[in-house]
């Protein structure tokens, strides 16, 4: 399993109603790779990220995660998380959100406490833990949402325009965080319009066109 690519996509096509939303002949993503999905609005970047995370379907073709098809894949929900452009946090405090994610993964209480504290320190959200999640800024919400995913064990992150709605300060912090996650070995697939962010974080870019077809990989 360790030699399997994280994602292997073959002859994928997905339609909304009857309109073609995504078409991809082949795509392979290696462990620890950072991939940027680039292209104009409506070209299928978000749809592709959701397809890879099993949020959308049914589709034609195959998507394999860690060597196994997405359906009933035991690794998918344990190791990969999709984050919206504007992620949502659940009612309650930031701590409640992290605890909830850990509970979903059946992490024992004592281990969950340790993991939560470590995550808070790593992501610099210690001061936010007791804050009401609905009162956070866009940047803080992004940071907490990623922390929540990583705390729950995700090392394959599918991020939809992670910096698009952030102010300058939060944007800089998010770039540092993405680089740090890369250094720590996370596999990151993200959509972006910002060439600077793509150049900074991505190993490869995948070009989406309005015709929905994924044309080619561009080596960095």
């Amino acid at each position, binding site marked *: 399993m360790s030699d399997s690519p994280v994602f292997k996509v073959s002859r994928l096509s997905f339609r909304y109603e009857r309109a073609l939303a995504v078409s991809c002949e082949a795509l392979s993503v290696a462990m620890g790779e950072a991939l940027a999905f680039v292209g104009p609005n409506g070209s299928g970047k978000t749809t592709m990220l959701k397809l890879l995370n099993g949020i959308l379907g049914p589709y034609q073709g195959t998507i394999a995660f860690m060597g196994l098809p997405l359906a009933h894949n035991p690794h998918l*929900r344990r190791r990969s998380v999709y984050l919206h452009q*504007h992620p949502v946090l659940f009612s309650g405090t930031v701590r409640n959100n992290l605890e909830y994610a850990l509970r979903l993964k059946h992490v024992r209480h004592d281990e969950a406490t340790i993991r939560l504290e470590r995550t808070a320190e790593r992501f610099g959200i210690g001061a936010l833990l007791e804050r009401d999640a609905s009162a956070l800024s866009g940047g803080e919400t992004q940071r907490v949402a990623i922390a929540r995913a990583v705390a729950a064990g995700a090392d394959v992150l599918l991020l939809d325009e992670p910096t698009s709605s952030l102010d300058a300060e939060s944007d800089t912090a998010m770039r540092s965080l993405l680089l740090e996650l890369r250094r720590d070995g996370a596999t990151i697939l993200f959509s972006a319009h910002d060439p600077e962010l793509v150049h900074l974080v991505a190993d490869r870019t995948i070009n989406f066109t309005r015709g929905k077809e994924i044309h080619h990989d561009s080596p960095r």
Partner: protein
Amino acid sequence: MRTAIALLSGGDRETWMTILTSLRFSFWSTLLSVIPGVPLGAGLFLARFRGKRAVVAMLNATMAVPTVVVGLFVYSFISRSGPLGGLNLMFAPAGVILGQTMLAFPLVMAMSYTGLQKLDPRYAETLLTLGAGPWHRIIAIIREGRYIVVQAVLAAFGRVTGEVGVSMMLGGNIRWYTRTMTTTIALDASKGEFERAVSLGIVLLATALAINFMSHLAVRNVR
């Protein structure tokens, strides 16, 4: 009108007994319809399957079934010759509560389903991506949409409190036992005795207004 108010303010035993019986039946039938209705409505909201539209259409159609038809349906089960005849539910409080539960259940389920559609779709997707199983997703989505669910519960309570067909058909309008506000009003009005009918009408109206007000408060809290 003065006599009607005097019946309420003077603590007339039969009037208040009727009110309490009505509210007791409504409470239990609402509770019994909410326990399966809300999770099933949330489950339907989260589920993706072929034929979902047909299921939703059928569910919506059941909301419009007249109360006497629901009463007749339950009657066929709990009457002496019905499959549940041995349980002696006919002309007993349990029979009325069962009938009202059957009346409220589709309403609770349909309103929960419809109401939760107003919720941001990112909640359901986030729960899925975080690995929440079906039951966890249902609980979490109910929690996020709790004000929407409160509206469904209040609507169900209003529906069963104001219905007359089920109570009359399954309860038999037995004094001190299964007589509710609506069956009393129907009986007294048919006899030309309006004092108690008006006093109970006032209570029903006040109940409807209170439910409406609480429902309004719940809507204000929907994000």
